[in-house]
């Protein structure tokens, strides 16, 4: 949605638009009351469409400060339903071969848009917590130095939040195969590659699916 008061320039345009909007309503009302109502409704709908239809520019690419620890590989993993997966485990082991690993698993608290607007996220957080707990237990059992946290329901926002306090050397995004993954449909992997200057590895859960690097 466009913010008409984003800066002085847009605010000034908003003033000009408002006077045109009101002038047309007043003129129509003077001709006939019903015409004024019609013009009011039509212009209001048009104004809402104009304001809500504005393209929102994607966030600019972000620089991530890497930790200056050469013998440690910091890996940020984001996944949800595909968290407990052999492919993911093997990929983490492969990436940290020869060095110590420091893995942070972020589990987005996926929620419906409606529940998000209502701030009803307890269920989503509980579900994410269960998956995260199981994943941490499994990865720890495999000898991986791992910790985890619940993230924003938007995986990109969850990544961004995590990167502010965890200087990752690599990001791993685990998804279902193409055709079964909402995240792939939404272009999460490509957007993560564009937005963060950290190598992003995409791990597909299906054992037969290819591993993209």
């Amino acid at each position: 949605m466009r913010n008409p008061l984003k800066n002085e320039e847009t605010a000034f345009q908003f003033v000009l638009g408002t006077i045109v909007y009101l002038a047309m309503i007043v003129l129509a009302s003077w001709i006939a009351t019903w015409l004024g109502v019609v013009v009011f409704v039509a212009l209001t709908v048009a104004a809402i469409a104009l304001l809500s239809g504005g393209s929102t520019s994607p966030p600019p690419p972000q620089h991530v400060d890497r930790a200056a620890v050469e013998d440690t590989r910091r890996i940020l993993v984001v996944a949800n339903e595909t968290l407990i997966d052999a492919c993911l485990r093997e990929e983490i082991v492969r990436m940290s071969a020869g060095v110590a690993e420091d893995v942070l698993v972020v589990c987005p608290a996926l929620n419906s848009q409606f529940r998000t607007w209502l701030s009803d996220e307890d269920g989503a957080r509980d579900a994410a917590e269960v998956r995260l707990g199981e994943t941490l237990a499994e990865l720890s059992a495999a000898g991986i130095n791992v910790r985890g946290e619940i993230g924003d329901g938007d995986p990109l926002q969850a990544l961004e939040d995590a990167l502010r306090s965890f200087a990752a050397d690599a990001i791993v995004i685990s998804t279902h195969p193409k055709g079964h993954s909402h995240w792939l449909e939404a272009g999460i992997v490509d957007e993560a590659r564009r937005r963060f200057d950290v190598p992003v590895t995409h791990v597909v859960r299906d054992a037969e699916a290819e591993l993209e690097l």
Partner: protein
Amino acid sequence: MSAHAEAGLHDHGHDHHGPPIANRSSRIEPTVLGMFLFLGSEAMLFGAFFAVYFFVRVVNPNASVIWPPPPYEFPKFVAGVNTAILFTSSFTMHWALKSIKNGNRRGLQAGLVLTILMGSAFLLTQFIEYAHIGFNLSSGAFADAFFGLTGLHGFHVLVGLTLLTVAAVRAFRGHYSPEHHHGVELPGIYWHFVDVMWLVVYATVYLL
């Protein structure tokens, strides 16, 4: 969350010194979110007064068909001139911003002074209008709605003038540059918002 995960939540130990980096846990830019919240609060404030106005004028079964109720009249022409003054002040405000963006300090100063003068003229005219309008708060609910709406807006103009005066004083002291003029930009946004609100008040209360 397991004890393992719980521990991990607060254990991001690495080499960062100083206060933690500000975390952003919203999908909306903070500045945009702040402005939306501000707009929302202002819309609710004015909305409450407009609700009173529409109730008095439309919903009230005893409301007069003619607005304002006879024998009272609103000074449409004077208010129209006042509207033109305030509307023009948006142009001078815009000019002031354009000037400093182009490195024209004189233009910034002149634009701010003209905006303040026009805003002051608007307020003064409104006070004179109040004095000669022929009714007061005890004249009925319509008068309460009228003074409430126009008075609320007048207060916003006063706040805007205060912000602009601070900006003008700083401008004459040599502050602001083409790169740094946030102190003018924000009062400018507020001033345009006040202008928009007046246009709505004038159209609904005086003209319709």
